[in-house]
């Protein structure tokens, strides 16, 4: 075990400790928070965020950021919902392909803008955030897809369970996390993403196809937003052109930053990100239980993001210190 791994481990352990302390603190006020039932509530709150966070993690590790995920989620869900509505004869699982494909295409557009024109991702995705949202209104003619058009089988994915009473949607989200883990740890391109974020200047010299890796990363972010999109339709039973996915980016970025993915690229783990998502889920589930008004949620998220940034900063400074020590 080496120094940085130790820090990272500490970092993940740190989030875990925070989660446990938080849960215990809430538990002293509301003992029912410490039951399996509330674990189920927390897990049901987080699958979409978890899926989005996996994509965002890859983007951030590659030293970019994707603000358009909420709009990509909305657009993909809308396209899929319209397919369900106007072509109910199509077998419903095809919706997954449509939604993921649509998302991947939108993500690819982000990636192309970032790579072809060498634009900062933050500005590009701020633009496409609006662009995709506007397109969602246009394709849907500003009409919501109602509950009756969403296939029952899809809706029941967030209720029925293959095993242990845990709904499908949770399996899917953790399945995505597992695949992401295998992808980043055990494939060459996964490691190249880390190399790219760790040293973008050197990456092409070491045979990292920067353009293609960047495109891939943004496409994955889009595809996962698309997956979150169809699951949204199933989870909530409707697709709305204005609500669906709006604000998703803030929750996801908060989770990723809290999970210890470094905004300077190159650093991030699937486990940390999962824990970041769970911490947010715990907060979201605990507030109503404690009777704290929902209006404070945004402020709490903001504060948690800033605290995570400060921690990130401290860890980074330790890294720099150890570097100077080693040189001495």
């Amino acid at each position, binding site marked *: 075990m080496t120094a940085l791994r130790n820090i990272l481990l500490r970092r993940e352990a740190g989030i875990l400790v925070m989660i446990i302390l938080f849960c215990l603190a809430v538990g002293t006020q509301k003992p029912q928070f410490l039951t399996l039932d509330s674990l189920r509530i927390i897990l049901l709150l987080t699958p979409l965020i978890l899926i989005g966070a996996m994509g965002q993690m890859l983007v951030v590790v590659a030293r970019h950021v994707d603000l358009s995920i909420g709009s990509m989620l909305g657009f993909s869900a809308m396209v899929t919902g319209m397919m369900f509505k106007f072509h109910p004869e199509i077998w419903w699982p095809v919706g997954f392909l449509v939604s993921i494909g649509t998302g991947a295409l939108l993500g690819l557009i982000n990636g192309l803008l970032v790579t072809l024109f060498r634009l900062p991702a933050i500005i590009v995705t701020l633009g496409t955030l609006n662009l995709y949202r506007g397109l969602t209104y246009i394709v849907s003619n500003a009409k919501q897809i109602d509950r009756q058009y969403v296939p029952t089988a899809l809706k029941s994915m967030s209720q029925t369970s293959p095993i242990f009473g845990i709904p499908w949607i949770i399996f899917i989200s953790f399945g995505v996390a597992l695949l992401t883990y295998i992808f980043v740890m055990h494939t060459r391109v996964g490691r190249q993403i880390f190399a790219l974020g760790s040293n973008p200047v050197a990456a092409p*010299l070491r*045979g990292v196809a920067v353009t293609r890796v960047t495109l891939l990363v943004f496409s994955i972010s889009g595809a996962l937003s698309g997956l979150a999109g169809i699951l949204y339709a199933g989870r909530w039973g409707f697709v709305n052109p204005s609500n669906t996915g709006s604000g998703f980016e803030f929750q996801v970025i908060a989770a990723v930053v809290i999970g210890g993915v470094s905004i300077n690229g*190159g650093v991030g783990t699937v486990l940390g990100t999962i824990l970041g998502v769970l911490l947010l889920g715990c907060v979201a589930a605990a507030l109503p239980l404690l009777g704290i008004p929902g209006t404070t949620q945004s402020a709490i998220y903001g504060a948690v993001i800033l605290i995570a940034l400060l921690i990130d900063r401290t860890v980074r400074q330790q890294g720099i210190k150890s570097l100077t020590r080693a*040189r001495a």
Partner: protein
Amino acid sequence: MTDTTPLISARGISKNFASIEVLRDVDLDLQRGEIHALLGENGAGKSTFAKILAGVHRPSRGTITLNGQPVDILNPIVAQKLGITLIHQEPISFPDLSVAENLVLGRGDGGWFARVPWSEMTRNARALMDLLGVRIDVTRPMRGLSIADQQMVEIARALASDSRLIIMDEPTAPLTPKEVETLFGIARRLRDEGRTIIFISHRLEEVRALCDRVTIFRDGNKIATDTIGNLTDADIIRLMIGRPLKEFRHKARAEIGDVALKVEGLTLPGVFHDISFEVRKGEIVGLGGLVGAGRTDVARAIFGVAPATSGTVTVAGKGVTITEPAQAIDLGLAFVPEDRAAAGIFRTLSVEENISAAIPKQIAPTGFIRRTVEKALAQESVRKLSIKLASPRQPIGELSGGNQQKAILARWLLTNPSVLILDEPTRGIDIGVKAEFYDMIGDLAASGRAILLISSELPELLALCDRILVMSEGRLTADIPRDQATQETIMSAAVPRTARSGVAA
């Protein structure tokens, strides 16, 4: 067999960067099983040539054949596949990836979704590190490794790549003599296996110890290729600089006056320790040493860019604390930084704005900029230093390196400094302009200014300085008067102490 066919045969290689030709019609054959040195001054084109072979740059003209087959080395990946590996001058690393991963990254085997063989990778990495005699835990990230260790990883990477041609661009600069010896041993073994090595270095003794043949570059031209035994050191230097060394010796002797800058016990933990010296009016004091010895850090500390944690600085007899450059400037200090692009110029701003950057109070006493004053000052500087430009309103990035450097010098002369710190002032500058700089530095000293000159080029130090300080591993190791200074005395003080004891043993 085809042993007589060269491994690499380059013909008519030329390279332009933005209308400036940095390499002109270079023909060069590299044989199998030779260690071939490329020599030349900074900017002579040897690194550019190496980078063309490694696919980092593409030649503007010319052809390269490998084993008699014409090849187009599009990019570093293609070079890697062809069996060509470049060890960069500055080690390239991915600080967040493990040492083992850094070793294999960029090897062309397997597709995108090929598995990463962690355990095999770690095993191989350990074996390589043992071979090089470096004790590094290969599972730890690169971040935190010393420059020397990073360089050893870089070398290990080239070994692991199983390349036919390994290009080493100044690999020994950060290494201890012991590490250099290990490296040379490995290089010789690779040669005996029939591989080809290109060795780029400034150190003639290393070239002599290791290489079979040398090629000398000057100003983008290949001047000569010969067996090392056929050339004396004097021959090589003459070929490299195109004239005898002596001409550079700066003749104008200034009156040496009072102490202008005095530094005592300056320390920045982990970077430099207990640095004490003084520079007098009219004196040029050199500061030599290996790359990474902490010379630039001392200059940055004095100037307040990255202040020291302890120690005192005295300017013109008064003790001062300098926490940011603005204070240093007010005290009459000036600092021409080493990295012109990063710390010197404002690339997209006009030459005028660049020249007037350090004198806000002169050009804008009320806060509003007086354009006429600024213009007049800039024009005068342009004339005095004969800066070649189309218009003072032109972005400075459009000028050549030498003229950019003159503009930076002009910026500092306008502050009328009593102490000038020059950090590698002639790096990347044409030889003609370099001579002008030497004259200017001499004149500045003659006008009563104290000058601290940091340089890695020993001839430059020897030619200009009244006294030469040498740093090694963050400490001052020598203070050599002009008449005792030779390349040998400087180098022996620059070599790290731990290593020297090793050599002695």
